[in-house]
């Protein structure tokens, strides 16, 4: 194997323009974090809502929840991304459609964030539903017997416990969202995967380019893991969840 190592490549100038590769990587990291965090916000909000709906005592609400989850879970993320990027703008009203296609600022970013957010929301919804259903039936019955309305039961009894129970699976979803954000390269968002490919093409330094992106992904996912673990510890109900101190 003859490979020409060049660890200085990060400080080298990009052939066109006066940026260094390091500047590229930093800005790419910024996009990766921005997309992941926006998508996570969408996924948590919608996922909690849809997941709760799926436990509601109403056939139609459950059906809507099921369609949502099955739809987003059974089509590959990359295909969904293309649908949002190429297909959805075609179906908007004429005026809006033209604006999205021509003038929309940071179109790649918003498309990727929405797509990834909705994709993950289905998975979050599944976890939240499982969390609510894992609670003893007696809790809901007791709450209703005490005169709480159904919304009150959810607000004060079921959801506070269910959200705590689902934190560990949500942690891995949070890490997944960071890993999945790499798919956004396909619509031209200049995030880590896109930039590492670009850097390979421009500099020819395969190892160094892939290593930088891989390490940064790992660091991001690990940080996400730490943040969620911290939240899990802070919100733990003493004596309820197994293994708690």
């Amino acid at each position, binding site marked *: 194997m003859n490979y020409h190592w060049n660890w200085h490549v990060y400080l080298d100038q990009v052939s066109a323009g006066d940026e260094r590769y390091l500047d590229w990587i930093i800005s790419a990291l910024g996009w990766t974090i921005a997309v992941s965090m926006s998508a996570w916000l969408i996924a948590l909000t919608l996922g909690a809502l849809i997941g709760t709906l799926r436990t509601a005592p109403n056939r139609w609400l459950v059906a809507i929840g099921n369609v949502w989850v099955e739809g987003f879970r*059974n*089509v590959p993320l990359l295909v969904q991304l*293309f649908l949002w990027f190429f*297909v959805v703008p075609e179906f908007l009203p004429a005026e809006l*459609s033209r604006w999205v296609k021509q003038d929309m600022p940071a179109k790649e970013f918003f498309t990727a964030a929405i797509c990834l957010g909705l994709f993950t929301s289905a998975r979050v919804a599944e976890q939240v539903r499982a969390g609510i259903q894992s609670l003893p039936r007696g809790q809901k019955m007791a709450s209703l017997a005490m005169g709480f309305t159904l919304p009150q039961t959810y607000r004060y009894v079921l959801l506070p416990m269910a959200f705590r129970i689902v934190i560990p699976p949500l942690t891995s979803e949070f890490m997944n969202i960071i890993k*999945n954000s790499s798919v956004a390269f396909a619509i031209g968002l200049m995030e880590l995967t896109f930039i*590492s490919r670009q850097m390979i093409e421009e500099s020819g330094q395969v190892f160094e380019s892939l290593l930088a992106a891989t390490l940064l992904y*790992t660091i991001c996912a690990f940080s996400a893991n730490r943040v969620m673990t911290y939240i899990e510890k802070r919100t733990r109900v003493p004596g309820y969840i197994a293994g708690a101190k």
Partner: protein
Amino acid sequence: MLGQLDFSVIAPGLPFIWEGLLFSLKLTVVAMVGGIFLGTLLALARISGGPALAAFATAYVNTMRSIPLLMVILWFFFLIPLFTGAPMGAEKSALITFTAFEAAYYSEIMRAGIQSVSKGQVNAGYALGMTYWQSMKIVVLPQAFRNMLPVLLTQTIILFQDTSLVYAIGAKDLLKAAEITGKNYNRPIEMYLFVALVYFAICFGLSMLVKHLQKRIAIVR
């Protein structure tokens, strides 16, 4: 816009798309078979291998699971030629990558499966005079597979969806074939919708099958 959609382009494009679908399926099956085989070995290494072997298996599984699949695809695509000295086709590279990558995920499932078989059974196997491999092959693994079958299949559905990521190295799978057809006939919108429908039909069908299977296995147990 809906009125302007012209799905008639799908018919002439079908043979080409079919080839793409066949590659996606081939990739899925190869990665599933190879991944479950390697994954089982990795799981055994973690559970009953020596400290060095267990540490290697753990490191391998954790590394693969913490890196985006797209990155792994790029690593293999660019690295294998550096070692072999000859450029490798995107299709071949994808087959190797997915097998190696999925092995990490299957190994976690198999590990849970093996650990779901009670220790007494292994000991009973030893008491009957079986060697380690015999007790694994005859007593533990068949039960582990059976217990984990629904989870293994669910992972395979995810694997099938993930094969679309070979887009990054230009391998011609279902998605790529549909995209090329869309460009050739200048009807990309219809083709994207069509390919999404195909993926949905396959994945939804399979997931229904898994649910059915899960119920049957649950009753037997």
